[in-house]
C-alpha cells in the first residue's frame, strides 16, 4: 500500500515539475485493494454454501451472523429476542441451503430476507400478546426493518474497506473533512485521496444495492 502511494506521489511531483515520461517508474494502475480480496473470499464462501458441510456453514455464520443479529437487535430493541431470531434464521438457512442459488442473488441478501420474515413474526407475536384493547401498535419505537438493514449493510462494508480507504472515509463522514484536509492530515497526494473517496463511495453504493436488492 505504502509502495503504491509513494510511487504515485513521485509521479505527481514529476508531473508538476513538467518532467517527461517516467519510464523507470513502475506505476501500478490502482493501489492494492483489500476490499476486492474480501469480496472474492465472500464469493467463494457463498458458492460453497449450498453443498458445503458444517465447516463451510460455520464460516458463513462467522461472516454474516453479525448482520443478522444486529438487524434483529436494532428492530426488536431486545438482545435476547435478537439472539433467538439469529438462531432461527441460521437453522432455517442450514435446512434450506440447497435452495440458495449464488447466481441469483447475494448470500447476505438471502439471509437478510429470512431475517426480515423472522423479525416480522416476532413483532406480530408481541402485538398478539399485548392487550387486545390497545390500539394497534404504531411501532414508533421500532426502526423499520429496511432502515435497519441499510445501516447494517453500510456498517459492514465500512468495516471492510481496508486501509487507507477506511480512515479516509471516516474522516470524510464523521469529521466532515474536505479531501484537501484529509490529504494534509494523512500526508497523501490529493489525487490518491480523491480516487479513494470515489472508489469507496461507489463500492459502498454498489454492494449496498446488490445486498438489499434481494430483499
Amino acid at each position, binding site marked *: 500500500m505504502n509502495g503504491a502511494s509513494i510511487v504515485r506521489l513521485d509521479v505527481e511531483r514529476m508531473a508538476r515539475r513538467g518532467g517527461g515520461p517516467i519510464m523507470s517508474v513502475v506505476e501500478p494502475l490502482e493501489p492494492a485493494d483489500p476490499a476486492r480480496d474480501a469480496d472474492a473470499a465472500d464469493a467463494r464462501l457463498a458458492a*460453497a454454501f449450498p453443498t458445503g*458441510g*458444517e*465447516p463451510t456453514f460455520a464460516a458463513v455464520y462467522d461472516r454474516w451472523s453479525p448482520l443478522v*443479529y444486529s438487524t434483529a437487535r436494532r428492530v426488536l430493541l431486545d438482545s435476547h429476542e435478537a439472539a433467538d431470531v439469529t438462531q432461527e434464521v441460521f*437453522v432455517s438457512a442450514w435446512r434450506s441451503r440447497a435452495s440458495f442459488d449464488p447466481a441469483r442473488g447475494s448470500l447476505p441478501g438471502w439471509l437478510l430476507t429470512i431475517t426480515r420474515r423472522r423479525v416480522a413474526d416476532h413483532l406480530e407475536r408481541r402485538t398478539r400478546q399485548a392487550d387486545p384493547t390497545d390500539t394497534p401498535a404504531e411501532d414508533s419505537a421500532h426502526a423499520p426493518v429496511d432502515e435497519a438493514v441499510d445501516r447494517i449493510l453500510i456498517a459492514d462494508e465500512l468495516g471492510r474497506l481496508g486501509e487507507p480507504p477506511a480512515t479516509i472515509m471516516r474522516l470524510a463522514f464523521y469529521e466532515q473533512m474536505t479531501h484537501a484536509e484529509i490529504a494534509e492530515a494523512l500526508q497523501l497526494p490529493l489525487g490518491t485521496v480523491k480516487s479513494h473517496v470515489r472508489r469507496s463511495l*461507489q463500492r459502498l*453504493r454498489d454492494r*449496498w444495492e446488490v445486498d438489499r436488492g434481494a430483499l
Partner: protein
Amino acid sequence: MAHCDAQTLSLIAIGEEPSADEALHLVTCDACRREWESLRAVVDVARDVDDDELMPPPAHVWAAISEEIAADAAGADAGNVVPLRAKRGFAPWIAAAAAVGLVLGGVGGALLMRSTPPEIVASVALEPLADYTATGNAALEVVDGTEMLAVDVTGLPATDGYFEVWLLAPDASSMIALGTLGPGETAVLPLPAGVSLADYPVVDISAEPYDGDPAHSTDSVVRGTLPA
C-alpha cells in the same frame, strides 16, 4: 458544460462545495443528478451509523444452532420409512453417527451428518504444536469440481498479527500458502489447480506478524496430515 466526472460527484456527495458551473449542471442534467443522489444516499446512511451498529451474536447462539442441526440429522434418519429389504443396521448406524457428530462437532460431525454421498475427500484433526493448546479439524472438500480446504480451529492464542493456512510437504521443505483464517477461526480456501495432496499433505496454521514478509514465520500453531 461537460458532465461532472465521477470524482467530482463523489466529493460533492460527501459535502464539498460544487463550483457554480457544477451546481448549475447538477440542476439541469438528470444523469449526473441521479448519480450524485445515489452517492449522497450512501453518505446519509453512513453518517447515521453508530459505532456499535454491527455486533456479533453471543457465543451461545452458535452452540444452540449446532445442537439443533445435529438433532435434525438424527431425527430425519430415525423417522425415515425403513424399506423392506433395508440394509441391516443402516438406520442405527446413521443415528449413532449423528450422535457422535453431535459430540465431536466440526468436520467429523459434518462428515457423519451428511445424507448425500460425502464430498469430503479427506479429513484430519489438527493438533497443537510447541506450547500452544489450539485444536481443530481440516477437511478437503470438492465443491462444484473445485477442491477446497475447510478448516475450523478453537483456542488460538491472542495475536497482534494474523493466522495463515498452509499446505506443507511431509518434510516441510516446501509449502503453499492457501490464505488467512477468518475472525471466527474458520476458513474455506480453494486449492490451486494442480496441487496434489500427495506432495503437500500437511495442513499447517501459523501465527504471522504484519511484517509484509510472505514467507512462513516458522511459528506453527496447529498441524495435521491429511491421509492419502
